[in-house]
């Protein structure tokens, strides 16, 4: 049986400068994997390479046995992606339901028309994420937390096998963060979705992370969070950091540095 994610010796460069180098790891079963590292560590680059959006200098990637560089659209049919919100042009007056329907229509062939089944799925996802009341509101007028939920709905509506979230908590209130975390957890355990979350702050996710990748151009460590989150590993990733245990709950404090 194919691994869900199989990355071997992956190196990606921009302008001949390696952004990620010799990355190798496998994910054999559905789990919540958090990719952690400082700004510029190559986290988003790794995600883009997994989806076949960037060609590597060397190495290979397989998603459910499919090569995303030779068959990118096959892989993207299996993936739900929540991008960083600052890349989105929020001044374009698309309504919430239009943004969510992107998640279905982009995976169809032309003429891309919503079927009755698609409309029912929209209703379900709006209820699942508590977005019914705001489905006709322009996306740009929502709060950060609401926008993030809408993007999550867009990613989930196609019932992906892998859910990828890129810095999902930037500019999002604590209540919305907790809500999103609960939904992601239920997807993992109820629907067996593999989840990959990129973040620079592990603390909100420490309770649900089953697998942790420390990244700073190279793969520093991979494993269970409590095994990987040591001060030695944090020093290699961030240049320093403290791990604090309070009533058996682990918190990490790292400095705000740029990658090496």
């Amino acid at each position: 049986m194919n691994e869900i994610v199989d990355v071997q010796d992956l190196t990606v460069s921009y302008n001949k400068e390696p952004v990620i180098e010799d990355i190798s790891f496998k994910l054999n079963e559905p789990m919540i994997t958090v990719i952690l590292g400082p700004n510029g560590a190559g986290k988003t680059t790794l995600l883009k390479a997994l989806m076949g959006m960037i060609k590597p200098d060397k190495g290979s990637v397989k998603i459910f046995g499919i090569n995303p560089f030779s068959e990118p659209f096959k892989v993207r049919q299996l993936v739900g992606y929540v991008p960083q919100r600052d890349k989105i042009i929020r001044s374009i007056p698309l309504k919430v339901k239009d943004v969510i329907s992107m998640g279905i229509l982009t995976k169809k062939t032309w003429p891309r028309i919503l079927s009755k089944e698609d409309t029912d799925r929209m209703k379900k996802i709006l209820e699942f994420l508590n977005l019914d009341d705001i489905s006709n509101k322009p996306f740009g007028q929502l709060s950060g937390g609401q926008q993030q939920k809408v993007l999550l709905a867009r990613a989930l509506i196609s019932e992906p096998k892998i859910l990828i979230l890129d810095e999902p908590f930037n500019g999002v209130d604590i209540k919305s963060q907790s809500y999103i975390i609960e939904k992601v957890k239920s997807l993992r355990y109820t629907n067996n979705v593999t989840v990959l979350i990129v973040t620079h702050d592990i603390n909100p996710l420490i309770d649900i992370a089953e697998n942790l990748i420390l990244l700073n151009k190279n793969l520093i460590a991979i494993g269970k969070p409590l095994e990987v989150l040591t001060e030695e590993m944090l020093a290699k990733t961030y240049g320093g950091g403290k791990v604090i245990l309070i009533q058996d709950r682990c918190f990490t404090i790292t400095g705000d540095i740029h990658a090496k």
Partner: protein
Amino acid sequence: MISLTSPFIINAMIGIILGSLAALIAGTLSMLRGVHYLSAEVTHAALGGAAIGALLYEIVHIDSAFFILALLFSMLTAMFTGYITRKEGIEASGLAIGLALAFSLSIYAIVIGLIPAELQIRVNSYLIADILLLTQTDLMYMAITAMFGLLAMFLFYNEVIYTCFDLEGTEALGLRTTIYDYMLFALVGVAGVVIAKAVGALLVFALAIVPAASAKELSNSVPKFFLYTFVIALLSGFTGLFLSIIINFPTSGLIAIIASIIYLMIITIKRFSK
């Protein structure tokens, strides 16, 4: 005073309708994609194409050469800007336009001195146009181009809007954004030439971007954004035309002033009503 049923006026009115339809494409797409000056700048590149068209006309007497080559230069300039924007980011789009314009306008500068005066007038009509001098042939070219642009927009509306809204996210979701992004830039170039034929490249900004900017202030949905751009361009066009008949002022200039006044009125009313 000129009769409203004179062929000049009727042609001008048809030209305004076609120009407004083109503004619906060029103005809104430029603003949605975040390259607000694109439609205005790439239509200047049409001058180089029109100049080459004049040379061709001198040799083989193909009348459509002016418009077709103007269209080609404008479209290719827009697509080149798209290429640089995709590669280097939106900040580099200005440089891309500058480079392409430099090439096209230097062709214009060379050729304009080589062609007879009557052909110079035809070439320069892409820079400063008189809507009252539109011919049936001009309107035919404009109509075919505008209809082609509208058909493309209708068929690929979702794809183009998604590409503008979230380029990377849409690609990750499975859409081939490269095709639709280049299509967007090409449509802006193509539609811009229709507007340039109506009011001249110097005033494309006034008929395309200013109505789109006004529409943006009023719309809370993308379909309304398109519709209001068309309506405001049409209103500016017809008001400018009829005013020019009454007070005997150049029509294109009045259209531009009316469009600007409408924008100022909208933003003033919006500010004071807050």
